[in-house]
């Protein structure tokens, strides 16, 4: 099909929503996007295209550093990928106007109390301001599921796949060889830890 539809270029109306977004993105100054949005370049290395109708603003170094410190504490991890962090931060802040303040509040609390575990930090944060729970959920959803602002920021590099890589593959990325699935996967002991935050309703999206 070569014709256009309602003035749209063929590539747009024949393409997927993601390709349409990408087309828009590429029509912005390509140089600006690549140089200015670290998060955008991350996406291409992970096979995910950052699906932004308007690209989130680039964080300044101080904000990003605070976000990374908060993230490391909430994941109990010493190292996290800074490029993914920049993309997550930009999207979390883009999604909600008050998130910058909430993230700053989390960072200030962490600086003040020097928590040594994620649980202690999260518990204290919710106690100081119940609304901080939502931000903590967003941070964890970002790192573990790779999702922020309702978009896939990373897929294969989401931490949920890192911690299960001895057993399963991210869908569409299996590399176990023929009939790998017949072998015995690792046993997993029943966890003894407790929740740090109050429980929330889990809303499952429709299929």
């Amino acid at each position, binding site marked *: 099909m070569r*014709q256009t539809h309602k003035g749209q270029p063929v590539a747009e109306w*024949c393409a*997927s929503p993601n*390709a349409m977004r990408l087309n828009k993105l590429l029509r912005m100054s390509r140089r600006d996007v690549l140089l200015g949005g670290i998060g955008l370049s991350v996406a291409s290395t992970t096979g995910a295209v950052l699906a932004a109708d308007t690209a989130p603003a680039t964080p300044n170094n101080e904000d990003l550093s605070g976000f990374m410190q908060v993230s490391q504490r909430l994941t109990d991890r010493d190292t996290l990928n800074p490029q993914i962090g920049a993309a997550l931060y930009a999207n979390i802040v883009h999604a909600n106007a008050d998130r910058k303040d909430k993230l700053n509040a989390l960072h200030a609390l962490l600086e003040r109390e020097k928590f040594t575990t994620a649980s202690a930090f999260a518990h204290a944060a919710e106690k100081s301001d119940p609304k901080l729970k939502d931000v903590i959920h967003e941070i964890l*959803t970002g790192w573990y599921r790779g999702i922020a602002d309702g978009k896939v920021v990373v897929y294969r590099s989401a931490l*949920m796949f890192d911690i299960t890589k001895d057993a399963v*593959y991210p869908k569409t990325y299996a590399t176990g060889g023929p009939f790998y699935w017949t072998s015995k996967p690792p046993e997993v002991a029943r966890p003894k830890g407790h*929740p*740090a935050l109050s429980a929330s309703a889990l809303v499952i999206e429709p299929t």
Partner: protein
Amino acid sequence: MPSEENLSADVVIVGSGVAGSSIANELARAGISVIVLEAGPRVDRQHFVENFRNLENKPSYQGPFPAVPWARHPPDQQTPNDYLHTTGPNAEAYQQVYLRMMGGTTWHWAGCAWRYLPSDFELKTRYGQGRDWALTYDDLEPFYYQAEVMMGVCGPDPAVEDLGSPRKQPYPMDALPISYAAQQFRKLIQEKTPWRVVHEPQARNTRPYDSRPTCEGHNNCMPICPIGAMYNGSYSVYHAEAAGAKFIPNAVVYKIERDSANKRVTAVQYFDPDKGSHRVTGKYFVIAAHCIETAKLLLLSADEQSPDGVANSSGHVGRNMMDHTGVQVTFISGDQALWPGRGPLETNVIDNFRDGNWRTDRGAYLVHMVDDNQVDLATQLAISKGYVGRELEEQIRYLASHTVRLFSHNEALPDPNNRLTLSKDHKDILGIPHPEVYYKLPEYTVRSCEHTRYVFRDLIKLMHGTDEQWTPGYFPQDHPAGSTIMGTDPKDSVVDGHCRTHDHDNLFIASSSVFSTVGTGNITLTVAALALRVADTLKKELAHA
């Protein structure tokens, strides 16, 4: 495409899914000229794979397949829905999804390639329920095999594991080795229950077949096999094109023309995306446009000669809507780690409830233990429970390795009151009405679902399960059938045993819409077998023409 172009073929097919494309392939290989009109666009696999990877709601089967405005399909199973409008006491149970694109809805099936049981074709005679088909299992057996060879179906040796549908030939490929999780489930069922777990026959390669690779276990059969190890209709499109069939995408058929006697179809008319109208003439016509769109098109073609729609002298076009209604539960097993999600999605089935004398009273069903990667769900659940840091990671591993999901396909019955009509309130950009379906679950199906819940509760107990999450109510399994029902009597059916419409000599229907009952196995192999039988009939008639 210029509208003055003379489009004509021996056989004109509407719809490029497994039914339409496999007929096109058979006919083109026999030297018969074929035009296939597909309402939706042509898109390659890699686009769908990238769409999937970028999809936030990964379990959305429709998500990677955005519809075009001139060939809408349901965006999801939500009620209300902005394309397929369902009403009635069980509206949510008929919120089917399907695709309008080159290759059809098998882009996102799981490859489950069941033959129906002989009893499924004789439900009325054997159990006094529903209807009999106007053909028998034996009539269809050779075409079942032809369909299995076309798709590349793997399955068990009947001498070792008899699935109840007699075979004259072995499966084209050996059965798929089941996952560790399925092995443990099978052991449990064998040791602790009177039931059994069988290998599910699948249109999935256990060796290289038809220039496609062996399954690598990406666990993404639905919504999209990333490597083409699973058959879908697009492969029959490629074969048919190579044999000379002409496929026209973005061609939305809206009118079926007949001769002055109203006995023969003379042409179909289609809109292109800008509503330019085109006419395609032929000797034979096959509507293979999915159960819902096929009935919609017949109704849409109503005119003075056929005020209730084409092929509808019986008034049964759009009636008798059926599906495999589902019961589903997800829970956390208290036993060893299973790690579902290693290998293909659906590989094993409890088949004890597919047939029995109790079918006089309640519908049959089959049970899938779904082998779906649960890491994302486990992560959402663990976060919602309030875990963070190290404890969160422990929870994710535990939940992902212990989550079990069971679901069923429960048999419906043909009820003329369950009916598809053209929406009076909703039209697409071409002015074509959306489909609307009234649905009330037959009591026969409700009783079947109740039985399934008892069985699921037993299974949960056996696995020391906790945290059960029952999918509320009844949910659609996207196996719609019955809208142009088959029968011997033209007064109460739309097509005969060869899928020829009673009203029009040269008009055939190739779709689950002709099913007289819906059985329990996934419908696609039966759709393909019926389509290949239509191709066989057409080849014979054109040879004698």
